């Protein structure tokens, strides 16, 4: 569904992504892991067109997404840190997004309900805690029924209950055959929802394998240990 | 002794008899399209001195009518003398001629001769009253004339360029002429005087002429009162003259890159009083002029109220009102030998603590910017810009460029009022 070909991106002298090629298929839940600054978020932003690649290509269903924008209707994005116009109320943000995405008739407002956002509709974005902003981000990412979900550290600021709600939502969407990319550091969470793991180190693709293959490969029961082992092996 | 008296009586008697004869002979000749006499020029030719020629309404296609004896030529029901663009219409070569009530039209434009609708040549006591002149090269042309009256005429030209148009009222080597109540327009110069002295120019309206509304040179001792000079191509220009009085005139809307309300060049010992200068590019421009009294005039909405070149000396500017001019006074040098006092300046921001209506702080009517514009004309593009305001403010606080002597030490706080409409006697 998404194919990344020889993607390179640098910020000034810093090479953030170096010749990354990878292919994600429908129905996959891919966890993108890697140390801080390894290029996970940059890759997401490249897919979304928020960061522009230096070279390489990104194909969605066989078509390049570079310099395009309509393809984003198929993607729901939940940023690592949601930034919103501070003087807008939650209600206004949500209604504005609905207004911009008028063409989507079947809205998925499940998370709005589960997170009880309606009760906070009149709060301004600037006054919200990081966790509440994350809830708004999550609700918006799923709202327009996209075929692809890109979730950047989705549970990072969430309380355990809210994190559970999100995880079950992810699993529910997975069953619908959607492609879901999650960047995360929490291995247990990854094990719970993901099938595949993509590992980036210093902007290079380290490996991209299914969880079972990783465990088998490292001969470890626990994913965290297996990954740690693989990382050490390579050095 | 008795013999002498006898002789005198005889002379008086003879003179009386002659006079009786002339009255008896002074006939009236009628001219009209159905009369026995149909031609004005024939009537004039046949007339005797002192005759009265009455011309009734109608169009008379005649030109080069010459009057060389004292007759009265009087139009009744507005007869028209049509020159058909062939030479002049009426030439007066005799004194004591009276012309009234005609319309003169269609005088030939020539580059060789100054053809005029009415010419008075080497005569005196000629009166030209209430005529109309239309589409003439020159209108009323007086040369070497004395003690004549040109009154109530309307001269309307059709001039397109300065070279193909003559002057409406043109005086050359004349003396003691009265030019009064005329309306002139559409000519090169409205009123033109060259070597015309001791004359009165009063209540005339001169507008929309191609060049000057009034133009004179070498014409000393003239009085200009209650005239209006409006929208002339270059306003009014007067040169090389002394002893003139200009009072209660209105100079307005003389607007253009080279237009002046009143341009004075080498004028001396003259008085300019109670005039109004309104919306002229330059109100008064003075070059090489000295000993002028410019007082009680209103300068309103002009670009420059006064442009006073540094070669002017001993001119005094007193009790004038300067209101809403872009520049009050401009000069080109930093020496100033003229005097300003007691004027009202609307740009004056001083105070009057003792309430004597005289500002306690002297006013400097020349701004730094006006000096700059005088030197670099294209910097006028920055008029009303922030930087110019800033420059002027700084110069007001620390004067360094503007002439130190150019100052009104006793500016009036209030607008000066005077009787502007006072009719001359």
């Amino acid at each position, binding site marked *: 569904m998404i194919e990344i070909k020889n993607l390179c991106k640098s910020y000034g002298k810093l090479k953030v992504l170096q010749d990354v090629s990878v292919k994600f298929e429908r129905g996959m839940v891919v966890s993108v892991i890697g140390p801080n600054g390894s290029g996970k978020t940059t890759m997401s932003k490249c897919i979304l067109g*928020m*960061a522009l690649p230096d070279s390489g290509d990104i194909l969605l269903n066989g078509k390049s997404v570079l310099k395009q924008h309509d393809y984003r209707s198929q993607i729901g994005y939940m940023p690592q840190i949601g930034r919103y116009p501070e003087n807008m109320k939650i209600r206004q943000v949500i209604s504005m997004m609905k207004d911009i995405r008028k063409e989507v008739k079947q809205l998925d407002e499940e998370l709005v309900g589960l997170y009880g956002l309606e009760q906070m509709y009149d709060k301004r974005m600037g006054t919200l805690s990081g966790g509440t902003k994350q809830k708004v981000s999550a609700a918006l990412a799923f709202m327009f029924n996209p075929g692809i979900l890109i979730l950047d550290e989705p549970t990072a600021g969430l309380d355990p209950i809210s994190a559970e709600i999100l995880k079950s939502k992810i699993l529910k969407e997975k069953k619908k055959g959607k492609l879901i990319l999650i960047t995360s550091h929490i291995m247990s969470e990854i094990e719970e929802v993901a099938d595949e793991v993509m590992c980036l180190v210093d902007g290079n693709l380290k490996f991209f394998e299914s969880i079972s293959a990783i465990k088998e490969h490292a001969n470890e029961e626990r994913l965290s240990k297996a990954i740690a082992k693989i990382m050490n092996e390579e050095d | 002794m008795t013999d002498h008296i006898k002789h005198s009586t005889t002379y008086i008697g003879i003179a009386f008899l002659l006079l009786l004869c002339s009255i008896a002979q002074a006939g009236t000749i009628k001219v009209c399209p159905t009369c026995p006499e149909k031609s004005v020029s024939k009537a004039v030719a046949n007339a005797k001195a002192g005759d009265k020629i009455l011309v009734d309404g109608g169009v008379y296609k005649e030109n080069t009518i010459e009057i060389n004896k004292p007759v009265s030529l009087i139009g009744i029901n507005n007869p028209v003398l049509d020159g058909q663009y062939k030479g002049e219409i009426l030439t007066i070569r005799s004194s004591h001629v009276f012309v009234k009530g005609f319309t003169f039209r269609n005088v030939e434009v020539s580059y060789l001769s100054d053809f005029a609708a009415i010419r008075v040549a080497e005569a005196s006591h000629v009166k030209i009253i209430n005529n109309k002149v239309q589409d003439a090269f020159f209108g009323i042309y007086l040369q070497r004339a004395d003690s004549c009256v040109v009154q109530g005429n309307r001269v309307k030209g059709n001039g397109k360029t300065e070279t193909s148009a003559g002057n409406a009222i043109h005086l050359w080597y004349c003396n003691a002429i009265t030019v009064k109540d005329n309306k002139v327009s559409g000519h090169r110069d409205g009123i033109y005087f060259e070597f015309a002295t001791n004359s009165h120019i009063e209540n005339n309206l001169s507008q929309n002429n191609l060049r000057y509304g009034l133009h004179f040179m070498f014409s000393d001792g003239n009085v200009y009162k209650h005239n209006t000079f409006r929208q002339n191509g270059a306003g009014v220009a007067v040169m090389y003259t002394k002893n003139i009085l200009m009072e209660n005139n209105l100079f307005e809307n003389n607007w253009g890159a080279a237009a002046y309300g009143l341009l004075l060049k080498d004028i001396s010992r003259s008085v300019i009083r109670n005039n109004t200068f309104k919306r002229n590019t330059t109100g008064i421009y003075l070059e090489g002029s000295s000993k002028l009294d410019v007082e009680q005039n209103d300068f309103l909405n002009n670009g420059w109220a006064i442009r006073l070149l540094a070669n002017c000396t001993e001119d005094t500017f007193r009790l004038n009102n300067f209101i809403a001019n872009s520049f009050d006074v401009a000069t080109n040098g930093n020496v100033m030998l003229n005097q300003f006092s007691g004027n009202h300046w609307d740009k004056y921001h001083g105070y009057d603590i003792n309430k004597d209506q005289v500002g306690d702080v002297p006013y400097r009517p020349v701004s730094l910017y006006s000096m700059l514009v005088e030197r670099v004309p294209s910097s006028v593009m920055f008029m009303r810009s922030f930087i*110019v305001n800033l420059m002027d403010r700084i110069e007001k606080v620390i004067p360094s460029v503007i002439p130190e002597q150019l100052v009104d030490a006793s500016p009036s706080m209030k607008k000066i009022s005077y009787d502007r409409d006072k009719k001359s006697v």
Partner: protein
Amino acid sequence: MKTIIKHVLYDILRSRIVLAYTVFMLVLAFGLFNLEGDPAKSLLSLLNVVLLVVPLISIVFATTHFYNSYEFMELLMAQPVNRKKIFLSEYLAVALSLSAAYVVGIGVPVLLYGANATALFLLAVGVGITFVFVALAFLASVVTRDKAKGIGVALLLWVYFALIYDGIVIFILYFFSEYPLEKASLAMIALNPIDLGRIVVMLNLDVSALMGYTGALYKSMFGSGTGVAISFGILLLWVLFPLLTSKRIFSKKDI
């Protein structure tokens, strides 16, 4: 695009700065008309203030707004919306709201105290200058990432166009006064939108006669009707150049 403009406008109206600007302009204009008996003269005073205040408010407000809208633009960029559209919507919303504030603030007093052609030109020039300086503000904002730096650049631009530039030109004219600089000076005028705006209004006040040969040149070069059209054409270039440049930079920028 309409939708986005609508939402940016909501956002601008919520901040009330534009409302304050309108009130300020109203107070200023009414004040000047009441202080000065002659409406023509107050119009000139108004021109002075307008040419100083409108660029300043426009450039500072637009720069601040751009930085404050970063989150908003970020939010939209993950949506199926063209970046260029986001940028142009931001521009139009800011320029239109500031212009509306200006037109109401100056237009209402002008209508009440006697509208004439000059007043109309003053209004048109003000709107033109607003569009130019919002475009310059956006350019300043896209080339600097830091908000404080961006506002600094914006203020510098304002000082440059309102003061320094004219100073330099007067300096040049003065020191080369022996040379025929009329045509060159006209070109120099065109290089400053504030000067250009002032000249347009001044020419329609018939001050051109004061400008002697320069004014005559200006009038003969442009004629009355076409001259105004050309001046506004140059103002339009002053809008398009910074706007399109900043749009290009913005669409290549990593968020």
